[in-house]
């Protein structure tokens, strides 16, 4: 398709809406100086045109329902349709967050039940469901760390430790909370270098943020030692739940010594990613930290069989988002959990890990790709295409683009930063053996091409809606809205 912008479909006079008439034609005047005078250059389109336009746009987009989507650290698993059906229920859509508690007992029960599941899954003692996404959860977590230390008069704890393999959100969240970020290097196994950690911790250490399995897909097997080192100096241990899918039902962050956990319901618990969001990033803490959680919590008064919003959180960090969280997302996650049950959740990690290792071992040994660090992975595996780059000039970016030509989504690339020319592949438990085999085949084919006909890889993709997109130009000459586009076009500064 060459689908025009919705603005380009506009023709004066067309309408795409209906509205009820006002109750009464009361005369109300906006004060003259506030009345809109600037013309509103919005598109004028009819409903059939709107529907065709966005239907076509959707067909120009690849989703989990289109095929394998092995973006590392994103856990692009299948999103069960029953989740959507329940979340689209009028009893979800048409309730107001300030309704009297007696009229939203269902909503509160859902939140409360979800919390019970998450507690048992992670081994934590209390959860807030407020954070809108993983990073929002991280911020919540580090603010709790901050509040905890300050509350104890421990004012010198200004540092958060973050491994060099961590997601960018970890240092960014710590930094937003006003901490100095101290990076801890990885060792040759791809796990935290204990000696470096020992050297880094001090009375300034507020906490360590750790992803386990880490972003290489490797389980931090010295986690007990790590926890000891951090706790010994009075720091707290924060669990980034991005990779929980690799150990779900097998081992719990709470049992490994973590004090705070954030989860990504849109990763581990099958709620859809929506092209970038909404997600949900609940944060769980151990008993001693529960008074710091954001308000309100959802509590249950057993005696009166009544769920309620609990604002009685004495040392709360306040709010990290309006209201109670991405409720519709919470509904989807609980639906999934109930269907899966304890044995289903365990099956998730077993097959997710099997799939990743299957793919890793099938691909290993293919010319141009290298599997650094330990062989045993959890739910994802990171290859390096450094040899290919050196030997053929074909970069990881090229490999990713070439995969698109096979109708396959590329893995996460150039992350984690500690692996050069990284290809971070997370198949998840939702794909079939045949899909894994086809993925390996495609990567092997690309390797072959790189060594025989590198141009075809370097100029990929060839079969997509658009050819390789010029992101340098996008940054050099920002065109961010239709308004900017029109101006630049009129000035002749752009030709597209």
């Amino acid at each position, binding site marked *: 398709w060459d689908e025009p912008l*919705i603005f380009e479909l506009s023709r004066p006079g067309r309408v795409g809406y209906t509205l009820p008439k006002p109750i009464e034609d009361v005369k*109300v005047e*906006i004060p003259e100086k506030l*009345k*809109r005078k600037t013309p509103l250059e919005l598109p*004028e*389109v009819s409903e059939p045109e709107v529907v065709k336009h*966005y239907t076509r*746009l959707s*067909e120009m987009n*690849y989703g989990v*329902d289109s095929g394998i989507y092995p973006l590392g650290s994103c856990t692009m698993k299948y999103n069960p349709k*029953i989740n959507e059906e*329940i979340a689209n*229920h*009028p009893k979800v859509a048409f309730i*107001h*967050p300030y309704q*009297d508690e007696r009229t*939203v007992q269902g909503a509160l029960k859902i939140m409360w039940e979800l919390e019970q599941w998450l507690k048992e899954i992670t081994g934590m003692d209390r959860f807030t469901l407020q954070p*809108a*996404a993983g990073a929002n959860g*991280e911020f919540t977590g580090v*603010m709790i760390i901050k509040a905890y230390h300050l509350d104890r008069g421990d004012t010198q704890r200004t540092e958060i430790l973050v491994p060099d393999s961590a997601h960018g*959100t970890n240092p*960014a969240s710590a*930094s937003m909370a*006003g901490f100095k970020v101290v990076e801890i290097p990885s060792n040759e196994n791809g796990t935290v270098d204990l000696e470096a950690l020992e050297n880094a911790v001090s009375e300034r250490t507020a906490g360590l943020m750790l992803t386990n399995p880490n972003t290489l897909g490797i*389980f931090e097997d010295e*986690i*007990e030692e790590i926890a000891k080192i951090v706790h010994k100096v009075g720091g707290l241990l924060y669990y980034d739940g991005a990779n929980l899918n690799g150990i779900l039902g097998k081992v719990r962050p709470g049992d490994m010594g973590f004090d705070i956990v954030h989860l990504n319901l849109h990763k581990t618990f099958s709620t859809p*990613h929506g092209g970038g969001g*909404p997600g949900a*990033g609940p944060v769980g803490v151990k008993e001693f930290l529960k008074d710091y959680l954001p308000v309100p919590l959802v509590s249950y008064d057993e005696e009166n069989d009544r769920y309620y919003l609990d604002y009685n959180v004495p040392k709360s960090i306040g709010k990290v*988002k*309006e209201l109670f969280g991405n409720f*519709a*997302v919470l509904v989807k996650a609980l639906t999934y*959990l*109930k269907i*899966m049950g304890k*044995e*289903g959740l365990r099956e*998730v990690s077993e*097959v997710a*890990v099997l799939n990743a290792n*299957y793919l890793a*071992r*099938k691909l290993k040994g293919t010319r141009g790709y290298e599997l650094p660090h330990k062989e045993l992975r959890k739910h994802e595996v990171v290859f390096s295409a450094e040899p290919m780059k050196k030997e053929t000039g074909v970069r990881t970016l090229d490999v990713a*683009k070439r995969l698109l030509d096979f109708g396959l989504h590329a893995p996460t690339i150039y992350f984690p930063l500690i692996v050069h020319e990284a290809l971070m592949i997370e198949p998840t438990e939702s794909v079939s*053996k045949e899909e894994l085999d086809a993925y390996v085949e495609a990567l092997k084919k690309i390797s072959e091409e790189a060594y025989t006909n590198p141009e075809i890889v370097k100029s990929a993709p060839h079969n997509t809606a658009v050819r*390789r997109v010029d*992101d340098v*130009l996008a*940054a050099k000459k*920002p065109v*961010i809205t*239709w308004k*900017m586009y029109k101006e630049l076009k009129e000035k002749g500064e752009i*030709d597209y």
Partner: protein
Amino acid sequence: MGNHYIPNSAHKEEMLKEIGLSSIEELFADIPEKFIKEELNLPEGKSEYEVFLEMNEILEKNKTVLEMPTFLGAGTYFHYIPAHVKHLIERSEFLTSYTPYQPEISQGMLQALFEYQSLIAELVGLPVVNSSMYDWGTAMAEAALMTVRLHKGKRKKFVVPKHTHPERLQVLRTYTRGPEVEIVTVNWNERGQVDVEDLKEKVKDAAGVYIEIPNFFGLLEEEIREVGEIAHEAGAYFVVGVDPTILGIVEAPGELGADIVVGEASYFGNPMNFGGPRAGIFAVKNDMKLIRQMPGRIIGMTKDAEGKRAFVMTLQTREQHIRRAKATSNICSNEALVAVAAAIHIASLGPKGIRELGEVILKNTAYLKKRLSEVAEIPFDGVNFKDVLVRFDKPYREIHEELLKRNIHGGYYVGSHFPELGEAALFAATETTRKEWVDALISALKEVI
């Protein structure tokens, strides 16, 4: 038996064998034995049908605004979402995709988000818009942090009206605790609007000044331009928070002097959903100084290798996955689908619909206000949009209880946030409000008061 969501459940043995392993346990051999959890203390899995019944039964305990006339607003409003909007965002290519890291196979989402940015730009009157924050509250908090960054930390004061929405104010306070920004509040005057004299006293050394359209009392602040001028004279950035459904009838904040506009995009295209998900608007002037300090993901237009127009995520060097600890924000997942829903709704309304929507809400609010004035005090004059502050002579909780008994859900009690207002509550109307609902409310209030 296999799991219906997990195709390879049925092939574990076979796959293990192919890669030379003998058991699943081997795959987890790197986990210290002592941490292995034998079994979670959780229910067993159920069939989809049973969970469907169970969730339905739980949800039955909710009473929706379709089941009782509801006059709650205060930041969450019952707007009608046209069916085609919902239909389109449920298309699985949109719903199940993620951040468009591979633009060549994500042009649909990228273009839809570019259109969102463009539509919001038209409404707010600023040309640079990101592809969403979590909600109005976090957008406003990030705007505050941004004004401080723009002053390179030399100014750490952010001035807000005392009657800023309490939810948003709480978020602001949490977000600004990291860099230790000082939040200064400005009083309201006898008309329930920002006290400009008080502002003048407090604006010195402020990094930013914030105001809302309409304000928490539902009132249109009349001196927005003046507030912006005061901010600018003091060297502060002017941040405007706006309910975008008003922007068909009220001048674009960008034209009123705003440097940064924040607001709630989910009022378009998205149901209330008990308060979430939502999507925060974040817009700035076309000034690279500001753009470089913006939080959040931005979609840009560019071309492909053949010179064809294409869309791509851009200006990513501001973001956490590249700049890490020095990023403008930690935001990664945003509210893309909520933004797309809003875009589809706005595009469907068009210029005429946006104006008409504003007018219908304005008139319905006026009708509600007029009727409420028959039975209670309206402490502030001025033009109301959606919310109307009403004061009663008797404890509001009692009135509320009586209304509930009559299957009417009254307004939002503001006494807990602003005790100085007395037994006051915000009652709200939108385009969805029906005459018979208001009439029922007034009859009930007459009985109750």
